[in-house]
């Protein structure tokens, strides 16, 4: 019997640790336990869009790996197209008896679910925050140890202070623009809109196309990039903009950068391209404040959002039982513990301790309670693209916030239909 796993992971390349973990730990372990079963890993390199297309084609014909790495926010789309089946249906109800479920929080389950049905198991989750250059703050007269803005105004004030001390710098990085793709929506727009107390959809799941919150966010962008040039507007528009923002941070030109914990785990880690020398001394972090204290989403003072990738099962797998066993095995405590050796991070199971890494321990404990997730909706993807265009229009100075919002309204209405939009103005 043969099983295969595919993931966007390549030994020695993108997500190399993941590939190594599967090859060196998961596969030998599973094969040892199941006589006559061979498991192969399809290392996969390529862009998100192509990956999506490949998976869609595979799942529609019965081709493809039995277990595939998968970005959670695509689940609704795939399910609507009939390209995924709930685990319970595919494997049988007994799959829901798996001991692991009890160690996975509902929020984490939701990452890989649609309409309350789990379609897979998340690999992990993340949280977003402001990363800061302690050295830069210090030299601008801000105490890094106590640095924690509590409103947008304070955030901007800190940026202004840095700018004054270092006129060449771009103190604040809040992602915007089309080239950064989903990173603009997740790391930029979401982090800001949640601070206004709004979200992208209202409680009924309708997309908000007109609101004070949107205007506030766009004005925030305008302040940062156009009016006061506190951020690097060019980097938001260029194809390699995201790299530039990382480089700015590494080169101490950016003091505050809003990113996910991945930025710490991977981007600035020792040995990587954007390694921050003497990281523990020079780098610190702060929570993203709401516009005003208490004005944030759910009435919070601080906001963050989580996303996650995970594993799904091929709906046409020849051996659903065995595939499920493999999936469960990959998410066993034993294997996830092993995974921490390859790459320490917040794991999906609450019984897998985060390694003795101060940063991860601290951020996860502080931010996870504050977090929320993207809407589980097939149209989210298209709307997200419009959000990116809207921010770009403002950041490049080609539209006022009002004009940008008007166009956004038009475009989103076209995508989801009048009935699925809401105006809060």
């Amino acid at each position: 019997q043969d099983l295969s796993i595919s993931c966007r992971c390549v030994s020695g390349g993108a997500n190399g640790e993941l590939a190594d973990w599967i090859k060196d730990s998961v596969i030998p372990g599973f094969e040892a336990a199941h006589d006559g079963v061979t498991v192969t890993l399809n290392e996969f390199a390529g862009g998100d869009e192509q990956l999506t297309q490949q998976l869609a084609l595979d799942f529609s014909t019965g081709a493809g790996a039995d277990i595939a790495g998968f970005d959670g926010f695509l689940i609704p789309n795939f399910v609507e197209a009939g390209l995924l089946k709930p685990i319970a249906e595919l494997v049988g109800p007994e799959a829901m008896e798996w001991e692991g479920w009890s160690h996975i929080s509902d929020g984490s389950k939701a990452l890989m679910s649609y309409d309350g049905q789990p379609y897979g198991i998340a690999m992990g989750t993340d949280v977003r925050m402001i990363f800061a250059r302690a050295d830069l703050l210090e030299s601008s007269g801000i105490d890094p140890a106590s640095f924690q803005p509590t409103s947008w105004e304070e955030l901007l004030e800190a940026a202004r202070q840095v700018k004054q001390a270092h006129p060449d710098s771009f103190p604040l990085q809040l992602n915007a623009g089309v080239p950064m793709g989903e990173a603009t929506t997740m790391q930029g727009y979401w982090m800001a809109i949640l601070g206004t107390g709004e979200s992208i959809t209202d409680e009924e799941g309708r997309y908000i196309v007109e609101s004070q919150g949107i205007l506030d966010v766009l004005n925030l962008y305008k302040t940062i990039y156009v009016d006061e040039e506190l951020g690097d507007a060019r980097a938001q528009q260029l194809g390699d903009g995201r790299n530039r923002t990382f480089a700015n941070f590494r080169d101490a030109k950016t003091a505050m950068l809003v990113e996910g914990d991945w930025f710490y785990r991977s981007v600035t880690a020792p040995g990587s391209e954007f390694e921050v020398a003497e990281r523990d001394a020079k780098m610190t972090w702060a929570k993203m404040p709401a516009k005003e204290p208490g004005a944030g989403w759910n009435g919070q003072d601080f906001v963050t959002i989580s996303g996650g990738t995970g594993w799904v099962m091929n709906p046409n797998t020849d051996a659903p039982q065995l595939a499920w066993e493999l999936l469960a095995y990959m998410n066993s405590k034993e294997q996830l513990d092993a995974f921490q050796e390859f790459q320490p991070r917040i794991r999906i199971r609450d019984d897998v301790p985060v390694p003795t890494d101060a940063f991860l321990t601290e951020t996860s404990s502080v931010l996870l309670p504050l977090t929320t997730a993207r809407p589980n909706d097939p149209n989210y993807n298209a709307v997200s693209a419009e959000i990116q265009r809207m921010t770009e229009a403002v950041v490049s100075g080609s539209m006022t916030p009002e004009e940008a919002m008007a166009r956004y309204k038009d475009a989103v209405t076209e995508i989801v239909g009048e009935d699925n939009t809401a105006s809060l103005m």
Partner: protein
Amino acid sequence: MTDHLRQFLGRAGFAFFTALIGAIFALPLVWFLFAPFNSRAELGLAIPEPFSLSNFRQVLENSFAIRALGNSLIQSVGGTLLVALAATLASYALSRSPLPGKRAVTYVLLLFSSVVSGSAAMVPIFLMITRAGIIDTHLSVILVFAGGLLPTAMFILRDFIDGIPRSYEESAMVAGASPVQAFFDVALPVIRPGVVVVVVWAFVNIWGSFLIPFILLRSAEKMPASVAIYSFYSEAGTPIVTLLAAYALLYSLPVVLLYLFVSWKFGFRFFGGIKA
């Protein structure tokens, strides 16, 4: 003397102007000469300081990417041979047959292929290949490339073949050769420069193409370099400049070598008329 001088200056002027265009064309590539050897490469042009092969060392550790170069070779050579063979035969037959409307046929196929090169057509192609049971094989990639590139190859080649006097083959036939013999002994060598253009063109196309292998292949052991190069992009889709530059250099070498070899061995031109 002034004649000589004027003429000399004229020629030197042409030569200088041409060399200048060449130099301008070379500029965007200069970065590639340095970046791979710079252990902390950036987009800026910088003489490696210190000169380092560490990028290559790291790239070589990526067995997936290295194996991919071999796969690229299999697919490109296979696809190119198939395109060259099928296109030469077909365009020869079209050029030498009395069929009416053959010009229009090649042109219509060309237009069709331009539509099909768009990504939407990947769906039917994928379905066909799946049904044929050759998904995730080198063969599937080779066949699909060959089909896609053929109309253009035929369009280019038929032009070349039309320009060749028929009396070459006529004389071979009068000498007793069958049409097929005349084709291989006489026509093929004469149109070789055209075939060479098509070979280089097809090879380059397959070598650089991402989408088709990506859609048709699954196993890491079969992925070509055009896909593997994305393993030097980080999780967030941003390139790891140092490694990418080093790998790009390795990745580019085969096409450059192919070109140099082919232009040295065959040249890219017709024999031209022999009656001076």
